């Protein structure tokens, strides 16, 4: 490679186009610098810097929302900017902000280093943004691994807690397996696309580029090597979104991870997986006849498994984990429907928004209800929440109601949009399964609501033993404002979502 080639490549590096990713990573670095520079007693202000910084970035991103929407390829075709990418940037920045807020509450109960937590959360969020905008398998893999490696650390962050360590280990082993599958799939695709005997001339140079992969698949939709590659790549992504049969890690990891990280996994990691899946679904579109059956089986099995397995859970973190699995199934239906009508994607995006809002409301309550050992959160710990903390109970009821899809909350509109798209796509079997899944889910969501709203009859504690129930963290005002906003947003998005849907449809 000579210098002029390198120069022309570098000329395409439009750093300004990486607006929220780059400043976010810099902010993350700034936190580490602050920890070294600031005297120890001022370290308490570092989380405040993190949160305010992200808030400022969010405002800047929203102000400049239109600016980043022009479709363009930068960094030599590694990154493709699009309105969808811009949507996910906002989504991940909000996620990162909310995880940081919950992190403050959760970390206050632990004797752990603080700063690294916020640092890694922000780095991972930036990587998620790049993941959904990647246009090249190298970029894709590097971003995905950044996310995954970040999560290895975050999941086992409370290293004095054996369950957190166990979760970290499980995530590591399963994550490594899925990365290996993904990488193998990429290699097979590379081999097929780059094969000079097969490919149209000129493809070999950019054999990892999404555009050339798509072009190759258009010409050779029946190439066996490429098909195996596609299935393996989809498997790697299925691990991220926790779809059956790659859901096996979900309950243990969600239970063991610190609650804010559970929320991050449930919302951020899942949304990133779906962002990537939507991109890949477009790339693999020429192989529809392979991709649609694979995704359909996955979606049906995911909905049934998630809901049925959640029925028997008493630990709320496992419960929300398995219910999250079923939500991935509903979202998958939307992705499949998008093969028939691209407008279905607006349903997927709206569902993600509703899921984010409702999930963080629930996780926010969980963060406050839990004690020092965050893995130990049984349904019975919620008994009487309505009497002792009416505010938390109300937020919980709205959040769970939205997740269950009860009108007029946001989750219902999300489900409705996906179901409508599936109807017009003619996916009747999947719809039947989805409707069944929704009815099953009512049982465990209402079981949780019941636990929170009504006092359970308990054996009177024998003398000398402490009464059951956990010491609940008082709700400070920033958390109160956040949770209140999330609850209100769930209601408002259920009643009045016209402009948002319009915006989503317009893209």
């Amino acid at each position, binding site marked *: 490679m000579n210098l002029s080639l390198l120069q022309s490549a570098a000329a395409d590096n439009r750093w300004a186009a990486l607006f929220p990713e780059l400043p976010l990573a810099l902010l993350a670095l700034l936190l580490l610098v602050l920890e070294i520079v600031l005297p120890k007693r001022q370290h308490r202000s570092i989380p405040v810097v993190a949160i305010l910084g992200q808030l400022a970035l969010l405002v800047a991103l929203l102000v400049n929302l239109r600016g980043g929407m022009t479709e363009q390829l930068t960094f030599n075709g590694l990154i493709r900017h699009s309105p969808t990418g811009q949507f996910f940037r906002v989504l991940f920045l909000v996620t990162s902000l909310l995880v940081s807020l919950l992190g403050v509450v959760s970390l206050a109960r632990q004797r752990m280093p603080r700063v690294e937590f916020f640092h890694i959360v922000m780095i991972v969020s930036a990587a998620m943004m790049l993941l959904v905008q990647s246009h090249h398998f190298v970029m894709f893999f590097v971003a995905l691994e950044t996310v995954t490696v970040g999560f290895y650390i975050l999941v086992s962050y409370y290293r004095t807690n054996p369950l957190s360590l166990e979760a970290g280990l499980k995530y590591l082993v399963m994550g490594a397996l899925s990365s290996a599958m993904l990488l193998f799939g990429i290699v097979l695709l590379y081999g097929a696309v780059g094969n000079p005997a097969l490919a149209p001339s000129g493809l070999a140079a950019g054999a990892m580029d999404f555009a050339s992969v798509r072009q190759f698949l258009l010409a050779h939709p029946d190439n066996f090597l490429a098909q195996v590659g596609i299935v393996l790549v989809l498997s790697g992504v299925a691990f991220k979104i926790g779809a059956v049969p790659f859901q096996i890690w979900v309950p243990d990891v969600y239970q063991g991870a610190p609650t804010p990280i559970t929320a991050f996994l449930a919302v951020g990691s899942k949304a990133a997986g779906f962002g990537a899946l939507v991109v890949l679904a477009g790339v693999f579109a020429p192989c529809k006849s392979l991709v649609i059956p694979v995704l359909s089986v996955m979606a049906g099995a995911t909905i049934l498994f998630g809901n049925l397995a959640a029925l028997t859970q008493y630990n709320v973190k496992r419960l929300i984990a398995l219910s999250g699995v079923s939500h991935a199934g509903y979202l998958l239906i939307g992705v499949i429907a998008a093969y028939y009508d691209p407008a279905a994607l607006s349903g997927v995006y709206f569902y993600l928004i509703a899921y984010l809002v409702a999930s963080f409301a629930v996780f926010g309550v969980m963060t406050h209800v839990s004690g020092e050992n965050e893995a130990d959160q049984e349904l019975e710990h919620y008994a009487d929440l309505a009497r002792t903390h009416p505010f938390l109970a109300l937020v919980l009821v709205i959040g769970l109601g939205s997740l269950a899809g*009860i009108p007029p909350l946001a989750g219902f509109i999300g489900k409705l949009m996906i179901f409508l798209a599936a*109807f017009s796509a003619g996916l009747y079997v999947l719809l039947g399964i989805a409707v069944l899944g929704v009815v099953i889910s009512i049982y465990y969501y*209402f079981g949780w609501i019941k636990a929170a709203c009504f006092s359970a009859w308990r054996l009177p504690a024998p003398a000398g033993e402490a009464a059951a129930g956990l010491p609940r963290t008082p709700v400070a005002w920033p958390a109160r404002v956040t949770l209140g906003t999330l609850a209100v947003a769930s209601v408002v998005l259920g009643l009045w*979502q016209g402009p948002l849907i319009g915006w989503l449809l317009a893209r």
Partner: protein
Amino acid sequence: MSLLPWIPVVTLVGALLALVAGARSAAAARAVALLTALFGAVAAGVAAARFAPSNELVTLVDVPWITQLGIRYHLAVDGISLSLVVLTALAATSGVLFSWTVAERVGEFFALYLTLVAGVYGVFLSADAFLFFVFYEIAIVPKYFLVAGWGSTRREYGAMKLVLYSFAGSALVLAGLVWTYGAGGAEGFSFGALTEAASRMSYGENVAAFGLVFFGFATLAGLFPLHTWAPTGHVAAPTAASMLLAGVVMKLGAYGCLRIALPFYPVGFAAWQMVIGWLAVAGIVYAGLVALVQRDFKFVIGYSSVSHMGFVMLGLATGEVEALAGATLQMFSHGVIAGLLFGVVGRMVYEREHTRDLVELEARPMHRRLPGAAAVFVLAGLASMGLPGFSGFPAELKILVGAWSFHPIWAVAAVVGVLVAGAFTLRVMQRAFFGQFSAACGLGAGAETDDGGERLSLPEKLGAGLLLAATIVIGLKPDLLLDWIMPALQSPAFHFAASKVVP
């Protein structure tokens, strides 16, 4: 300017106010609840007084809601919905009066109660299927909390069962409606647009979609064999909630069948007609027989509700104008009577005697201890048996006539059901109130010495009086309602019924 469109909104605001007021004092929450219920009653009354019967839905409000899907916030009223709005107003008001003695978490209780009432009003007033569905769900959710939070016998089981059945039913409804919207290519969810879309579906699709929507609604209406949530749910519910559940919420299901399932899919309806009719008849007889052998007072009333709702479903199954009018009248009538019966059991008897076991009640001289309750129950029981002079009589008569002309065996079987209803009502009346009657009258030695009986409180008297008056007035002059209902059934939506005039 009609007050009608404001009822759901005002009731919801009342629910919020009750919650706020309840945090300070129970009396304030009660007052808020009563005022809100009275607002509904006044608004319904004014609308009823001014109502000019027409054969079209008269639009009250119509604004876009979710424009991308063509969903509108569209409220409208015709004779059928107005009858049921009046019923809701009556049941809601007397429900508040009958729950005057609720002492725990009063604010929350009335907030949930009023939310339920708001949902019910909304359903009866909606003219957009999607809006209808949303209000329907708003009515379902508070039921769970009311039953699980303030109920009695196995309340958590009853509440969960009730909610699962309701949601399963509404999931079917939603699936059917969305299918019609998608497959038929509707422009929105308005009644007209969906009817048109359904007519564009193929025969098989139409039949299947009708099945989804009808049986989804019929679950809430307590159609046999989907009724099993009803007795357990009614028994577990607190008094006011079971009054509303049996009195109004079951009507939501029947109203959904009448307003949506039948007019949208006349083709599918014709295919399912026989099945529905036989299920309705089976429900009438089966639930009546089960009621005959119950030991729990409230279970008797619970099963009697299922039996009476069977008449509504039978009327719908015939698909003839007279019988449809009868079914609507029966919805009103049963709403009033069931409210009354549950009020007597839950509030008047159970709260004073702390038992609903008929064997235990039989051993007590109830006619002396609670003469007021006995009197109300005798009247309500007579109404429930369908005696002339009470609202049940014209309603069941119309349904039976319709059933006879459509399928005589249905009518015969339903008449057996009427006889069974007489039997179980008399049995429960005798056991619950007059178990020691002969002993007290005849042999003085056997009679317990007792305090001379307890008087009913003022709210109870008012609540019972309101409902009794309604059933007697409609019983004596059913034309008051029929004059509203019949023109509404002449509308193009019910064309399928009008075309089949009995020779």
